[in-house]
């Protein structure tokens, strides 16, 4: 194992320490990740986590951080703790200087004239941006198979899906192509990929991270959040990107409690942890259920009180989600019409009217899943159907919120498996949208209610040896509780495994080459 191979396996927190101590330079770290990307991401059997690699700019930022550190003084002192630690950004988040595609042909080659607020904050912290990661087109999917640029592969098994929509960010972190990544979570797009790739993913409280510059799927559900290999790393990244933004009206005015400190608390004694009756058991893979029970045992041993809560309206959450999300998406995606930017397709014959150019552009530029949701949403908002569909779904949303409110009167944190199954095979559910949608059954309630959720690795399922995710949920603005409980559970699990779960993942470089040789 080379030095670089060790370097890329370090957590972001550990990298930050080594950078601050001068044991390694940011250019060395950044180059090590770029080399890793070059080694495992491309080719027919590559992970395909990146849609764009931003080598030149990333190295320039790294060199700038190194120069500041070398010069010492006040500027070096004031560097952010994550300065020089590289990061990957989901290609739904706009960036100046790199293309942003949203995983869609309709934005192929488009360059944003402005940076998303979270990207501004990464730049302010001087974190080199390695590139843009793959996703289901416009974040619509649970497998990254709906990307117009080919699926991302799961580093645990290249024939399996890495989850979605943020499969690229999760796979990049799991495959040691980046120590950190940004994702977006509308119904589980950060947490479910985290679960199936053995990584950590957090959907923050709605409004705690600015959405400005995240291409909207469903405005009332979307939230940007961190992807990492450890709970502490997510807390560090959450701290960089969070906080009020006057450009986002739904941004919360007050800062959250100290998330990094919460991740370092180190105990859960006396905390009440609630098992959600409706989010485990029937419909959940046996190996998932077993790892879930292991986690409960460990928490109990650590002094937490395990209680059971019932959220009876969660059974309607998936249905409500698949009305609200497409309704908002149908309107949010109306702007992609070929008039001002992106793809423009002219009709092959007939009159060249604006309606026909818009139609031809959208027909050619959007994939099937996007069209499916636009049609669904357009229908749900139509006069005469609005009350029955969108209106009812909003009422369900209120009921789901009430279920959470009631549950949080008896529990400080709720717990469930993140996804009902481990990673399924590429292509397995592509022709069955409903089966695909069911993957998000445990993650969706948090988006409907705006509460924060964290997924962390819970071990490997007995039957297939693939990662299982454990989801923690907290009341709105209480993200700190997730980091506190998550970090404790993580350390207990790692003690049991004798190291991080990802250490058990197959050696990827060999895997990619071996399969290619076949």
């Amino acid at each position, binding site marked *: 194992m080379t030095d670089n191979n060790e370097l890329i396996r370090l957590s972001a927190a550990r990298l930050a320490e080594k950078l601050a101590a001068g044991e390694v330079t940011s250019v060395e770290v950044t180059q090590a990740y770029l080399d890793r990307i070059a080694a495992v991401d491309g080719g027919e059997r590559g992970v395909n986590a990146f849609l764009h690699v931003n080598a030149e700019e990333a190295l320039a930022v790294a060199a700038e951080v190194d120069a500041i550190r070398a010069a010492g003084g006040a500027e070096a002192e004031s560097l952010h703790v994550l300065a020089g630690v590289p990061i990957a950004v989901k290609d739904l988040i706009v960036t100046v200087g790199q293309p942003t595609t949203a995983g869609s042909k309709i934005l192929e080659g*488009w360059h944003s004239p402005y940076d998303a607020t979270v990207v501004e904050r990464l730049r302010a912290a001087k974190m080199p941006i390695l590139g843009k990661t793959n996703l289901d087109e416009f974040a619509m999917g649970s497998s990254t198979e709906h990307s117009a640029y080919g699926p991302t592969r799961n580093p645990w098994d290249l024939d399996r899906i890495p989850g979605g929509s943020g499969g690229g960010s999760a796979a990049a972190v799991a495959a040691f192509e980046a120590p950190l990544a940004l994702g977006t979570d509308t119904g589980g797009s950060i947490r479910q990929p985290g679960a199936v790739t053995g990584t950590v993913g957090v959907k923050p409280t709605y409004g705690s991270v600015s959405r400005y510059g*995240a291409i909207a799927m469903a405005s009332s559900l979307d939230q940007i959040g961190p992807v990492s290999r450890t709970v502490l790393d997510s807390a560090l990244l959450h701290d960089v990107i969070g906080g009020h933004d006057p450009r986002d*009206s739904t941004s919360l005015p007050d800062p959250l409690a100290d998330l990094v400190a919460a991740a370092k608390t180190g105990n859960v004694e006396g905390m009440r942890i609630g098992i959600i009756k409706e989010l485990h058991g029937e419909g959940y893979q046996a190996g998932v259920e077993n790892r879930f029970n292991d986690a409960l045992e460990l928490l109990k041993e650590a002094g937490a009180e395990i209680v059971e809560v019932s959220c009876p309206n969660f059974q309607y959450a998936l249905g409500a989600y698949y009305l609200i999300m497409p309704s908002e998406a149908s309107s949010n995606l109306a702007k992609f*019409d070929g*008039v001002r930017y992106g793809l423009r397709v002219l009709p092959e014959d007939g009159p060249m009217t604006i309606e026909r150019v*818009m139609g031809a552009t959208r027909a050619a530029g959007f994939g099937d899943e996007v069209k499916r949701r636009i049609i669904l949403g357009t229908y749900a908002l139509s006069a005469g159907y609005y009350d029955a569909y969108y209106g009812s779904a909003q009422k369900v949303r209120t009921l789901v919120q009430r279920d959470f409110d009631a549950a949080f009167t008896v529990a400080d944190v709720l717990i469930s498996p993140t996804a009902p199954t481990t990673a399924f095979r590429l292509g397995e559910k592509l022709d069955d949208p409903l089966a695909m949608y069911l993957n998000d059954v445990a993650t969706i309630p948090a988006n409907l209610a705006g509460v924060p959720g964290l997924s962390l690795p819970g071990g490997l399922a007995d039957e297939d040896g693939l990662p299982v995710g454990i989801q923690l949920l907290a009341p709105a603005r209480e993200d700190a509780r997730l980091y506190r409980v998550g970090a404790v559970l993580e350390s207990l699990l790692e003690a049991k495994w004798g190291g991080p779960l990802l250490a058990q993942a197959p050696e990827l470089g060999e895997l990619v080459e071996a399969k290619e040789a076949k």
Partner: protein
Amino acid sequence: MNTDAILSFEEAMEKYDPVLGFEVHVELNTKTKMFSSAPNVFGDEPNTNVNEVDLGMPGVLPVVNKAAIESSIKIGLALNCKIAESCRFARKNYFYPDTPKNFQTSQYDEPIAYDGYLDIELSDGTVFRVEIERAHMEEDAGKLTHMGGATGRIQGADFSLVDYNRAGVPLVEIVTKPIEGAGSRAPELAKAYVAAVREIVKNLGVSDAKMERGNVRCDANVSLRPHGRERFGIRSETKNVNSLRAVEHAVRYEIQRHAAVLDAGEPVVQETRHWHEDTRTTTSGRAKSDADDYRYFPEPDLVPVVPSREWVEELRATLPEPPAARRKRLQADWGYSDLEFRDVVNAGVMDEIEETIAAGASASVARKWWMGEIVGRAKNADVDPGQLGVQPATIVELARMVEEGKINNKMASEVLDGVLAGEGTPSEIVEKRGLAVVSDDGPLLEAIDAALAAQPDVADKIRGGKVQAIGAIVGGVMKATRGQADAARVRELILEKLGVTV
């Protein structure tokens, strides 16, 4: 082009009872746009007052302009509306290239102001109450220019240009309840209502209120029903009627057109109509029916607007005096008789007179110029007096030159024509045209001698004491001096010459 049959207005009134309704869009003069920090400025280079939000770039989010909320509340209060304790924006979804997001962000079922009224004074002094349904906030669309066609409309155009400078400009849409009972005064009421709204938003300082620039735009709804029937007829909506006179004419025309349709036993089509100022007619636009489905839903990118009661009361305290009180005060200040003042109001030049007085003219001089000179010219040009563009300073300058005896009234009127023709300021025109009152008596005496010699019988009459006959001699002198003589001085000199004392 227009082939619609119409009935005479009188006949239409004999048979039918008109019901009106207005949607008046007021462009607010906030510094920035409704949902972005781009400048809200009229007339700049196309597509320069835009940022990523106005262009609907991927990832952008709107933020409500607080100044626009404040202006909207002021408008609501001035219209005697209730102000919502909480209200939301919605998305109105439709594909059209003047709307960058392909939806318009607009208030829908939760307007910021609702349930108000406005008392409208008609020309004979009677007061008609117009009920206000609501005043809601929305954003304007961009401006499309259709190129290559003969009509400037999209039909037949080769291509269209779009200017997004106007996209996102804050608008308040004021919607009336159905206005019943105006009868034959419907056209007059229509004009007076829009004038009153314009006056209110202008006095509030929340809009530039220039109709010719589209700051105030009126959509006029008209329907007819036979006398005595309660149920409303089918309405037409005439879009973008953009001058006060046009509002009056459009309502009158639509009443006549509806009456002809109903008389022929045909159903009125519910549709939008386009107003044509040149022919003073409307033509059919888009059929408007329940099939229009904008798929409204609450705008998820914005939080509800919750104006505190304290803020509303603070704004109420800053409201300028209501128009009726203002009229009363101005009439007293200016010392006009009731009749004089009503004429001023009906001519639509009260604001202009106020500005002219503020610029330094006396009340009587201001009235003389606006009512005596400008209103007539506007009528000839078929525009509103304010649209002629006469500046208060011009009138002050003209009045001063007359007072100083540099020019006489006849010349001043001529100079005004020059100003309107764009020839320069009054003093420039006086110089250029060589206008000046002839004050040297020498040439005048020559002209008087000639005039007296030409009409010896008149000269005898004057000598005989019939001084009123002097007009013929004065006229002759004025003619000989091409109007440049000071008529009063001429009169004096004639009397002197003939040895008559008065």
